[in-house]
């Protein structure tokens, strides 16, 4: 499916014009009243076009997960507006969510977990089963369809979570550090698999990661977020790395190396300038503000 998939994605540019996910001046705080109130996002704006792969990159606690929950409609913003498909976001089959932890239902089998996502769809029992089967196969877990989550490794669990998010064939896929807790080898394979899936489905992806390399490898664009209260400080287009990126060694390309250095420099600067950071004020800031 790999070669065809990349060809199948023939007209991405035409489709890429419409903003599908829009955050406009969004603010969000947690906690009640003055006591223990944390302002997580302030004036956060972001646009993701249809079919685009955008990574949110930023320090821990800057509100990346919160952004995904807002986009999914699990949370409502305190200020500003979140628009998905031109309206208010509603959780459902159109929006796929891969959570930071796997969140598999322990008393369901792999198949049961994947089929669970199809509950709100109007599909018949047979169709649900067939569809679940296909996505379990896709993530390479056919032999484990009847296994329970406690019998799976971390990498396998993550693949089930991925199958569950994909099985509804969502138009927008929200992914929260999906590969953070799996081993390096599995991660590489999963990244390649995700790129294939994405290129054949044409879904819009909003991808949260801590890893600069991962962000560059996967994304069309990287939205760099600053420390809490978080907002997008900079949008960085990933240029000069043609797709499909699984067909060559992306990491050895000078464009990759350059971008990597630039991003690291920015992040270093952000951390050193953040008064709340443990590293505040250490080292000399190379660029005068």
């Amino acid at each position, binding site marked *: 499916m790999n070669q065809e998939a990349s060809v199948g994605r023939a007209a991405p540019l035409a489709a890429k014009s419409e903003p599908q996910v829009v955050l406009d001046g969004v603010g969000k705080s947690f906690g009640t009243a003055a006591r223990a109130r944390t302002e997580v996002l302030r004036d956060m704006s972001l646009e993701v076009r249809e079919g685009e792969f955008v990574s949110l990159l930023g320090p821990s606690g800057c509100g990346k997960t919160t952004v995904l929950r807002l986009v*999914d409609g*699990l949370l409502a913003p305190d200020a500003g507006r979140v628009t998905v498909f031109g309206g208010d976001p*509603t*959780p*459902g*089959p159109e*929006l796929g*969510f891969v*959570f930071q*932890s796997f*969140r598999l*239902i*322990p*008393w*369901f*089998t792999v198949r049961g977990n994947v089929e*669970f*996502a199809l*509950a*709100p769809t109007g599909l018949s029992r047979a169709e649900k089963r067939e569809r679940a089967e296909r996505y379990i196969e896709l993530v390479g877990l056919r032999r484990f369809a009847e296994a*329970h989550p*406690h*019998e799976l490794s971390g990498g396998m669990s993550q693949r089930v979570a991925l199958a*569950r998010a994909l099985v*509804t064939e969502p138009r927008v896929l929200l992914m929260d550090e999906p590969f953070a807790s799996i081993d390096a080898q599995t991660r590489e394979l999963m990244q390649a698999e995700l790129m294939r899936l994405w290129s054949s489905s044409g879904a819009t992806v909003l991808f949260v990661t801590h890893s600069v390399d991962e962000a560059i490898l996967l994304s069309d664009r990287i939205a760099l977020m600053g420390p809490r209260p978080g907002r997008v400080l900079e949008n960085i287009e990933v240029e000069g790395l043609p797709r499909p990126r699984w067909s060559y060694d992306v990491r050895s390309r000078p464009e990759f190396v350059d971008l990597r250095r630039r991003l690291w420099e920015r992040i270093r600067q952000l951390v050193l300038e953040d008064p709340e950071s443990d590293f505040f004020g250490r080292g000399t800031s190379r660029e005068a503000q």
Partner: protein
Amino acid sequence: MIVAFRVGFLILLIGLWQVLSQNVSRNLIPSPLETWAAFRRMLADNSLFEALGESLVVYLSGYSTACIVAIAIGLVMGTIRPVGKTLEVYAFALAATPRVAFIPLIIVFLGLGFEAKVFVVFLGAVMPILVNTYAGVLATDQNLNEMARSLGVSRPRIFASIVLPGAVPFIVVGLRIGATIGLINTVVAELYTAVGGLGGLLARYGNTFRMADYFVIVLSLAAIGVAVTETLRYLELRLNRWRGPN
């Protein structure tokens, strides 16, 4: 293997019992053989089965009613938060009150008959089941809950697939505690209201120092306790089969 150890331990207990019966004044502790003879006698004249039947009907009526009512109320309290927050103070207060204290009141309202006994059993068993069910619903994994919401799964479906199965281990604990207190209250009810059933025999044989017969009743009560808790354990294993053997 474990079965062999259990049988071995039982033999040890009976041996110990034999030794005790020979060393303590004979009138207080009957020997195992005397008890066995008493058991045969009570089987023959049908008195044991009659009493056992009477007690079991009281026990199971009260206990099963308690199960249904407590699980239903516990689930409602856990699912509809305002209801839970309103009632929980009263539930905890009632759960902490020794419910034997209500017996005189129950007698005033329900008399000394079957209903009164069933109600005493019900009252003993209902609170632990209710409080545990409530706690089980509140302990719902919020991550799973959010995952299901994000999929757009309906509330009834979330309840059936996530909340209820998650609460099962709590509910089973409640059922077990309730079963024990229910059994105790069966005997208490039979002693305090119209004397009857195993509790009645216990009182009669105890007061007349027919110790062999008395022991038969005590052991019958223990057997009921074992039967009920083993049934619940089996139920628990069945419900937890997804965990696999470990």
